[in-house]
């Protein structure tokens, strides 16, 4: 593999972490809002390009193992990229790149310009942490990167325009720290049993040791810890406030990446380290996770229906959508896990699209309250059209990505004979129709109040990122080979390694 002519490109995995990390420092130093934005955007798009190259390489040549500093694993720290995390890396860096491109226009509304360079520094740090968690092959590294991304996301959330951003941020900080510390405790117990921190080595050692109480407690700690970060119902309490009061850009970014990477970490621990047998046959994790997932699907959607702030409505809808991902995971079959992974990918596209639409509305109208949306269908046609398409995808209408993931989840439920679950998935989709329709009705079928100020179309700097995501929603809804195909191979790999 190691070719001298390719020496730089063979270090590509390390660049995914090192470049955003160093650029964050430069962002602090340059002090100019526009220059910091330019740097952050360039870095994010470069990371996205790198992630695409990496996925292509994984598809062609198989799993990439990169030895940090030349130390061989399991002693040295390894970056390990397989189909699963290559896909997650693409979505993380891709969403980062799209969202940060939109931030130049949107951010000036909410954050004073002299703080912009620090904002971009925190943004890049968060991206570093998320990318690091995704590609590392070392469990302690997962904890460190988790805390890097968490601390910077608390800082990003606290930048919201109202004072409630501060209380939302500290609420998330307290819960997030408990989650992170529980994960660390679980990692400690795993280290006690196996004497290694390398994921592959740890899985081998655990298979030799077999299940004992320490391992089970470790599994419990890791599951609860990551579930807090993933906002699994009922550990989701931090999420609605954090998403509502954070700056619109931050919400679009975190909703599509932070919970997704937490899902990745949970799946990685369950399938690659503990193995299906231990998690689902010894501890019966599915009996805990599946009911929680189904309750989340309904509770999240029902609460969403009653929200008057659309940003908050979308936040509760996220709780419901996390339920779908968790449902796929808890089925522990190839189709189910494929559905979970592909929904991770798809939900990231549609939710960041919807939150970016909210950024447009906030930019032009100054509020995301449902009353502010009256007549917006005529006044901001391109923005609201994007909302409709992403909303249809949220419901799961064919030709959008939402349909693809629901299809996999429903067929997984049918496959394993759990037809009530399939019915519940369809029923909860109907709830999504209700909360999306509310907005559509207000925007298209109600006239704007007569005293409403003139509203211009959304600025091009926001519309282009929004429509990039909308285009992706339709593209991956029709051509599923990249998202669902890779997710399917990843699911087969995870389940194959686990049993």
């Amino acid at each position, binding site marked *: 593999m190691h070719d001298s002519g390719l020496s730089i490109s063979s270090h590509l995995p390390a660049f995914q972490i090192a470049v955003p990390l160093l650029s964050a420092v430069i962002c602090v130093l340059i002090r100019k809002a526009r220059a910091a934005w330019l740097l952050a955007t360039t870095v994010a798009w470069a990371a996205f390009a790198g992630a695409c190259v990496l996925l292509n390489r994984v598809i062609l040549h198989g799993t990439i193992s990169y030895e940090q500093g030349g130390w061989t694993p399991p002693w040295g720290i390894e970056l390990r990229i397989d189909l699963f995390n290559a896909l997650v890396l693409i979505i993380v860096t891709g969403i980062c790149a799209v969202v940060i491109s939109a931030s130049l226009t949107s951010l000036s509304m909410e954050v004073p310009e002299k703080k912009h360079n620090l904002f971009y520094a925190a943004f890049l740090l968060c991206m570093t942490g998320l990318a690091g968690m995704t590609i590392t092959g070392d469990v302690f590294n997962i904890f460190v990167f988790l805390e890097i991304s968490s601390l910077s996301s608390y800082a990003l959330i606290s930048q919201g325009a109202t004072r*409630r951003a501060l209380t939302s941020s500290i609420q998330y*900080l*307290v819960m997030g*720290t408990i989650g992170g510390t529980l994960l660390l405790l679980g990692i400690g117990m795993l280290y006690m049993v196996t004497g290694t921190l390398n994921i592959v080595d740890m899985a081998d050692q655990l298979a030799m040791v077999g299940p004992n109480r320490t391992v089970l407690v470790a599994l419990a700690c890791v599951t609860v810890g990551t579930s807090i970060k993933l906002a699994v119902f009922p550990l989701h309490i931090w999420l609605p406030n954090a998403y509502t009061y954070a700056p619109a850009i931050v919400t679009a970014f975190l909703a599509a990446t932070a919970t997704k990477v937490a899902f990745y970490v949970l799946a990685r621990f369950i399938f690659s380290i503990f193995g299906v047998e231990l998690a689902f046959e010894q501890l019966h994790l599915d009996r805990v996770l599946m009911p929680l997932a189904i309750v989340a699907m309904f509770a999240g959607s029902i609460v969403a229906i009653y929200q008057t702030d659309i940003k908050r409505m979308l936040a509760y809808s996220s709780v419901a959508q996390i339920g779908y991902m968790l449902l796929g995971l808890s089925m522990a079959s190839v189709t189910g896990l494929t559905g979970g992974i592909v929904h991770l990918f798809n939900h990231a596209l549609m939710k960041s699209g919807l939150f970016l639409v909210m950024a447009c509305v906030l930019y032009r109208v100054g509020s995301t309250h449902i009353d502010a949306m009256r007549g917006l269908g005529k006044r901001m046609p391109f923005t609201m059209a994007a909302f409709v398409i992403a909303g249809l995808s949220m419901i799961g209408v064919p030709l959008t990505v939402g349909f693809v993931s629901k299809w996999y989840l429903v067929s997984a439920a049918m496959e394993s004979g759990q037809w009530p679950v399939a019915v519940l998935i369809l029923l909860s989709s109907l709830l999504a129709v209700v909360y999306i329709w509310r907005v559509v009705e207000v925007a298209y079928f109600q006239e704007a109040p007569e005293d409403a100020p003139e509203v211009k179309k959304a600025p091009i700097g926001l519309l282009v990122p929004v429509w990039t995501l909308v285009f992706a929603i339709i593209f991956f809804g029709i051509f599923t080979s990249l998202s669902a195909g890779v997710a399917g191979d990843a699911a087969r790999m995870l389940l194959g390694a686990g049993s």
Partner: protein
Amino acid sequence: MFDPGLLNYWIIMILMMTGLYTVIAKGNLIKKIIGLGIFQVSVIMFFVSMGKVRGGTAPIAGEGFEVFSNPVPHVLMLTAIVVAVATLAFALALVVRIKEEYDTIEEDEIRELEAGEEG
């Protein structure tokens, strides 16, 4: 049930639950952060005592050094301590900002103020 050799783990568990209880039960944000700190420190102590071998020395290759404590968990905790300090610093900074904005750091009073804003 009670094994004196496991005393350190008992202490760690008591500390951990004290911390968690403080975070949940106390409404004062500073007390919450203190609880969070205790919680984190208990896990740090868990790692440190895990690596300790009775009668073991620092891992030095040489004559007279035969039983070593495991340095890896100890080194890991250097990073975890940094994380804990960063979290504490950031949390305190947030509390200062909350005090400026709300003029209180009691959670129930903050909630009342926020409820007033909405209604």
